[in-house]
Each structure stands twice: as C-alpha cells, then as structure tokens.
C-alpha cells in the first residue's frame, strides 16, 4: 500500500532540526577541543590578550559565540521556512453554568 504524503510541516521541521543538531555538535566540538588544547595548563607568561580577552577565551568562546549569532540570523531569516501551523480544533471547555453567568468576564 502506498504511504500517504508526509505533512509538509513535519518535513521541513525535521530537515531544520537535523541542521541545528549538526550546528550544535560543531560548536560544542570546536569550543571544547580548542579550549582543552589552549586554555589548560599554561602559565601567565604565555598569556596574550585579544580585544582584552585572554586569547583562549576569545578564540575558543567569544569567536564561536559570534559565529553562532551570525548562523542563527542566517538560519532564522533564510534557512527556516514559514509554514501554516493550523488552528485549534475546538474550544476546551463547555460554556459556563447559567447560574454563574456574569461572574466570569470572559465566559
């Protein structure tokens, strides 16, 4: 039996979720590996500053953080697609009791 066509919201949401997970893994790998190599077991004599930040903090945290902001902007404005989310199927509760009419402003 032929399978029905997938919901387009599901298709785009899954594609975008995979891309985001890849971005998350890339950011985590770069930051942790870079900082592990350049941020541990050093002496103050070797310390350099980049825009006031200790060099390992700038290259290992501030720079990837900036790249993530740029990627988030790209993702949110270009990559992620707009979809129709639909609307609710029904109201959640039966109408208010007649005996209480007037007591609930939004009933």
């Amino acid at each position, binding site marked *: 039996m032929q399978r*029905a*066509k*997938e*919901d*387009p*919201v*599901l298709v785009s*949401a*899954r594609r*975008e*979720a995979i891309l*985001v997970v890849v*971005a*998350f893994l890339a*950011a*985590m790998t770069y*930051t*942790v590996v870079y*900082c*592990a190599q350049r*941020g*541990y077991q*050093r002496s*103050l004599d070797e310390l350099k*500053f980049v*825009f*006031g*930040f*200790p060099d390992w*903090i700038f290259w*290992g*945290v501030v720079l*990837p*953080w900036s790249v*993530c*902001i740029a990627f*988030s902007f790209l*993702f*949110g*404005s270009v990559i*992620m697609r*707009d*979809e129709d*989310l*639909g*609307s*609710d*199927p*029904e*109201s*959640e*509760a*039966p*109408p*208010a*009791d007649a005996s*209480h009419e007037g007591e*609930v402003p*939004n*009933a």
Partner: protein
Amino acid sequence: MPEQLDVGFGALAALILFILASMWIGTIANRAMQKGSFLKGFFLGNRGLGAWALALTATVQSGGTFMGFPSLVYTHGWSVALWIAGYMVVPITGFGILGKRLASLSRRTGAITVPDLLRERFGSPQLGLVASLFILFYMSFMTVAQFKAGAIVMKIAFPGTGALAISEEAATGVDTAYLVGLTVFTLTVVGYTLLGGFLAAVWTDLFQSVMMLIGVVLLLCLTLTAAGGIEQATLAAASHTGPNFVFGPGYDPQESGRQFVPISLAFSFFFVWVFSGLGSPAGMVRIMASDSTTTIRRSIYLLSAYNALIYIPLVIICICGRALIPDLPPGKTDEIIPRLALGMTAHLPLGSFVAGLILAAPFGAVMATVSSYLVVIASGLVRDVYQRFLNPNANEYQLRRLSSIVMIAVGAVAVAASIRPVDYLQAIVVFSGTGAAATFCVPALMTAFWRRATVPGILTSMLVGAGTMLCLYGAGFLGYGDPLVGQVTRFRPYFLLGLDPIVWGLANSLLAGVIVSLFTSPPDAALVSRLFDAQPAATKDAASSSTTDATSSARGPACPVPDEMARP
C-alpha cells in the same frame, strides 16, 4: 570602592516603581486575556505570542543568572566562560529543533499544556497524568528555590538593614527585613500572575528582560571604567589569586585540588544548557503559544543576540569585580553584583536610584521565573489533573476559581518553605532543570518526529531518564565518591566518569525509549497518520476532531467545531 555600602531610599524607590509597573502590566494582560476562552487565554495567551515576547521570555534567565553565576565567575575566573559557553547554541536549539513541530502538533491536537500534547498524540490519558506529575515535581522545587532569592533582593533594597547578604549561607538568618521582602515579593508575583495568567507572566517577563539588559549594560560600563579595561582587570585579579583564575580548570580558593571545569564537565555543560532549555515544560508551552513560524524564526536570532549581551558582559563584570573587590570571603561571593551596583554608583548623582535600577535585574529575573512556573503548575493541576480526571465537565467559572486557589496555595506553600530558606539554591535549580530535561527531552523528540514511538516507550523513556538523575543525585548527596570536580556543595551529584548526570540521563532515556517502542505493538496507524501525514483539505477538520475524539473519554463531551476555528 567605598568601604561602607549604604543603600539609600533611591534603590527602594526604583524597586517599588518596578513592582508597580509589573502590576500594571498584569492588569493589561487581564483585559487582553478575556478575548478568548478562559483556559486557552489564561494558560496559553490565546496562542498570540509575537517574536519579542517569545524570544525574551524564554525563562532562560533566573535568580541564578544574577546570583549563583556571578559568584562562580568571581570565585573561579575566566574558565566560567567555558562553563556557560553552551548558551551560544541555546536559542537555535531551543526553537530550531522542536519549535515548529511542537507548535504545529499543539494546534492539530488542541493541546494547551505539555501533558495535553502527549495525551492527544498517543491517545493515552495515563501518559498525560505521569507527565503532569513529573512537571509538578520539578516545577515545585524550582519555584520554592526562587522565592528565597526574590526575598533577598528586596531585603537588600531596604535602607538601614545592612543587608548585603545575598549568599545562601547568610540568608538562612531570618529577620524582619527578609520576611517583609518575602511578603512583598510573593504578593507582587502571585498578584500579577493571578490577574493576567500566562500573558501577564510573558509581558512582565518581557519588561523585566529589558530591565535586565539595561542593568547589565549600566554595570558593565561602570565596572570597566573603574577597573581600567578587561586586560587590566584580568591581570589585577590574577595577582590576587593565581594563574588558574585565567586558565582552566579554574581557580580553587580552598586549594583542595578541586577542578571547577575539567574537560569532561565543559563537554557536559553544553548538554546541560542546551537540553535544559529544550526540555523545559515552561519553554515548551511558550513555543506552543507562538502565533506563527515567523515568530519562531525571529525569536531565534533575537534571543541569540540577547543571550550574548547578558552572559558575556556578566563574565566581564565579575572579572572586574574580582579586581575591584578582591577579598570577599567564600560565603559572601553571591553579593558581588549588588556590591558592585552600590559601590559603582555611590558617587553618581541619583546613585542610589541607579543602583536600584541595576538591582531590578536580579529581581526581575526571579519574578519572571516564578510567574512562569506558577502558570505551569496551575495549568498542570487545573487542566491536566482536575479537568481531565476529576471533573471533565467543569465550567469556566470553576476552572477560573480553581486556578486562583492553586496559585495562592502555591504562593503560600513557597512562603512557608522560604521562612526557613532551603540551602543549596543554585544546586537545586540545576537539579530541577537537568532533571526535567532528562525526563522530557527524548520523549518530546520521539513524540514530534518518530512514528513508531509507543506509549510504553515514551513512559519508559521518561521514567528511566528521571530515575537515572535521581540515582546519580542520590548517590552524590549520600557522599558516594567525590571526584573533586564542579561546585563545592553538599547537594551534588555523583559524576560518573566525570560527566554530569544529564548526559547519562539523556542516553539512558533514549535507549530505553527506542528499545521499548520497538518491542511493543506499533501505535494506531490512523492516529499516527493524522499527525504525521498531510491531510486532504476537505478532511482536515474531521482529522482534528477525530484526534481529539480518540481520547475524549475523560474529557467530557466533544464540542462542535465552530466555523471560525476551522483550518484554512
């Protein structure tokens, strides 16, 4: 820095203005909420959240952001920047992985709460009940912990109390100022949440987020000027401490050999922040309340920029703080932000008022968090327990009255628990956040993307994730093995292989969920198809109704679908 930090009346005036503004926003929200049905309006804001409201109210900042976190930077130095670095991807993961699908599913099923969504997606009232109980468990911990923080900020603002005692240890001393602070905080936050429900929580959260940003930027300018720049501050702080203040794994004031951020924890904390955001029930509800995918898209980059403007400056401020106030004793390091606020503004015109504006940042963070949790707890009890199981035919008057009673009761319980404040505030917040993440993240992903997920699989995934967290925290609390990593606190987990428990919780939850789903009967194909397949336009309405009907036994009679609510 002046030796005596005197809190003038200006700080109190600023906080009172802040409180009045929050109450006013609550009344506006109350009017806006009345446009729709009570439940959807009070607990979901009629699905009308825009981009700014969604982005800046994701409840990522809490009392810990302005209390526990600054204390860690002050104590351990630059390595805390690596500890918090996971926040660089929190906005894109928080909205980009589940956002669109969650918002869509919640509309298709008519779900108002997270348990609602699980129940409707799988046609299982039991699953909804278990999710509700877990949410109530974690949220109760978090809410009570926040009340204490709110009371302490109020106490600091009272002139003449000499109350720069924001630390957990110092706060255990109960005095009149603390009790007054607790009362004012509780009345304010419960009051405006009662008035406007979800919308009040969101709008005040937005207002408070703006105040947080103003406070942080003000303090950044003042401390950088006083310390002579980041580089000067770093060198001065390192001269008072040692090279580990600048490098990993972080400075250890006790020289006990404890490593604050070993590589294993740096790796773990990417998971902690990302999945705590992704699995937060309060965060999920806000996504469900967003008005469109355009809103979700914009929220991603708005929150990205906002987080960077809060966390990186906070690190810089506290590094400067170590240079400017080098010798705060270990029990007093939580005081660094209010001390800097008061010290830096002491010689400014209207300095006390400016200090109050800065103090409004932590106060706002705590209020925003509490109001959001109050809504989630009330919705859990009213919608997921009372309406679903006890009184399916409850009318709006009954639901509204019960919502008010629940919020007042939660406030009263939190006040009672905070009269003798809990210890380990920050650790409890981390436990609740990561516990909720290990319990809900994998089930939420399976719910959204996996057709083959079954009720036993989702239940097992939740139970195993939560069980793993409880076991590892229990082992740590009982003193089983301390690998000398992370924070110094009695309420600490057992770091198996040096990793935070959330890594094990997520892994076990995933394994259990997948294996049990594969070994149990597949879910009802028709139910899955309704939520995973494109619906022919003519049958969309019927599909939505059928999905709801499938689980309507405990929900009362289904209502006819009004024409104006029909899908386009």
